[in-house]
């Protein structure tokens, strides 16, 4: 399929003709400013919570206290502005409910991101007194290569898929992993993902095959692909991008970076839309002249 012709020939030298061929670096400058300046101010704006976002929060809220949760970190630093705020807020909600957390990563950078999110959640004053202990309350099993194969193999044997944890301890020796054989031993699965392997593979090879319940945090790019799984019930909740993080922070009443970045989002979106509108005016004006 061919999109509309992009080479707008300009014979006249009017403002709009020139504008239609604007040097894109001018747009770049506007975008940079639109994102940078709002960070200096706090922009108050109401944040509407989508059904998927609310479902995500409620799915966790409805878990029995002390549930055992498997979290998969399938993203790398570039996606962390979107996923890290979600992960931190999720950890906090889970620890509040005394859940036991087991973290894995299908991306090599995942476990490292998980450590950073855990560290920030554990610093929270809420949990200082709880004395959450590694190996008992949470564990990080590290990265394993093999993509969907790893997901599938965990369905039959998790300790053999991850023989040792991130710190080099034998997985089977961790108190939290005692009695854990496969997905059936987890009450819930949470996936933070920004691509392949990610939520789609988890749905295909874990949810569809083991019947586990799962929610996911996705980048805004990846989310559209996975909405269908939310609608079909294969996912119980879904957070999409920075807005999802802001929604979740709003619903769970723990405003953080997600909420504060939304101001810059609003301004930059307005700038992009402004350029689209001006571009269309330029297009129609120069077409009429021709």
């Amino acid at each position: 399929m061919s999109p509309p012709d992009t080479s707008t020939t300009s014979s006249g030298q009017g403002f709009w003709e020139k504008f239609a061929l604007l040097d894109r670096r001018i747009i770049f400058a506007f975008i940079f400013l639109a994102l940078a300046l709002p960070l200096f101010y706090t922009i108050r704006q109401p944040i509407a919570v989508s059904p998927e976002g609310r479902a995500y929060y409620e799915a966790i809220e409805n878990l029995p206290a002390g549930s055992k949760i498997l979290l998969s970190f399938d993203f790398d630093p570039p996606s962390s502005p979107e996923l890290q705020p979600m992960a931190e807020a999720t950890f906090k909600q889970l620890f509040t409910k005394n859940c036991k957390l087991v973290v894995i990563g299908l991306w090599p950078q995942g476990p490292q991101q998980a450590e950073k999110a855990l560290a920030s959640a554990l610093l929270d004053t809420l949990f200082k007194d709880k004395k959450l202990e590694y190996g008992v309350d949470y564990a990080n099993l590290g990265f394993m290569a093999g993509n969907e194969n790893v997901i599938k193999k965990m369905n039959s044997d998790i300790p053999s898929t991850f023989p040792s944890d991130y710190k080099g301890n034998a997985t089977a020796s961790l108190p939290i992993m005692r009695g854990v054989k496969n997905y059936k031993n987890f009450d819930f699965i949470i996936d933070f993902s920004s691509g392949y392997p990610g939520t789609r593979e988890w749905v295909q090879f874990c949810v569809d095959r083991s019947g586990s319940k799962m929610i996911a945090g996705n980048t805004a790019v990846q989310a559209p692909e996975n909405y269908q799984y939310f609608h079909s019930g294969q996912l119980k909740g879904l957070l999409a991008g920075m807005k999802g993080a802001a929604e979740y922070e709003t619903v769970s009443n723990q405003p953080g970076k997600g909420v504060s970045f939304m101001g810059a989002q609003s301004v930059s979106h307005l700038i992009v839309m402004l350029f689209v509108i001006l571009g269309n005016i330029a297009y129609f004006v120069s077409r009429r002249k021709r």
Partner: protein
Amino acid sequence: MRKPLLAVPFASLFLFSFASAQAPPAPVTNLEAKDTPNDRGEQVDLSWTVSPDENRAANPVIGYQILAAPAPDSPFVPTGTASAGSKQATAKDGLKNGKPYYFKARAYAMDSSFAESEVAGPAVPKGQWWNTKPNYTRIFIGMVFLVGAILYNILRAKKKELYIRPIAGINAIDEGIGRATEMGRPILFVCGLGAASDAATIAAFSVLGRVAQKVAQYQSKLIVPSYDPIVFPICQDVVKGAYINAGRPEAYSDKDVFFVVQDQFPYVAAVNGIMLREKPATNFYLGKFFAESLILAETGFQAGSIQIAGTDELIQMAFFIVACDFTLIGEELFAASAYLSKEPEQVGSIKGQDWGKVVFASLTILGVISVFLESKIHFFSLFKKLFVAE
């Protein structure tokens, strides 16, 4: 039988309870044990009626533990757990196929006191030879149909040429090659970030062969930077083969089909550089693409190239549609590869896939009708049961 590994963590669940001894809870009742269906064995399903003390205010039941033994009077060892509220669990620790087991369930209260149920069993864990869940049956039928349709059409395509409708992007491919020749600038071909086994990459190989052959005939230059170390030598083979077919093997150079790096953004950084330095007349992006799609397409536009894209990655299609001159959407990429190669295997596959679509559409329409008529006509209620029921 294995040591009772479970005892330790289970006890740790109660670390926070300092309540003084209170009344022990009532046990679960109606405990039943039977072999888990549709599994490889070594598991037994248990179900019960929950303890009435789950919701009492003082010292409620907070979890269950399953114990197993080879005989009703031999010692029972833990083999599974369940949280409060659950009515079933699967016992799996230490069970062996073909041996009878007896089971007990313990209801644990807040203060670690517990009550044991009656003994249930025996149940003999064993593996099954066929998964009888309805969805598995559906998948099996679907698979048999599709495999049959594709194979039948491949055989048909071997006997005579089958019709595939022309696809808009295909002419653009030849035009793009012509443009490069006229302008005396090279052509850039990116096979994407997929592995050699990805359907999109395999389709890209076919198109690459076609492009390389034309390039060899017109005596222009082709640049193929590779991402995957396994896709890389295949690209070399494909291009070399095309040059030989075109009768100009001497024009092929290993330097033009090269390996870059196997990490997404470093790869993009490098290809960006190639585009701005070599200024190709036409860029092909065929195969699997991820976030880099728009960076490539915008940089290519900046370099003044005509761009033709095709991918089976849902999200990236949108970027290619917006930023490229021609885009093969999803399955169109596979169809284009079949159309260009004319290989009966590929053409037959496309035909078989079309049969699949006909069945998909028919089932959807029948299904929509059946939602209306299921109460009136038996056929439709049966249909709905077959396709919609769990």
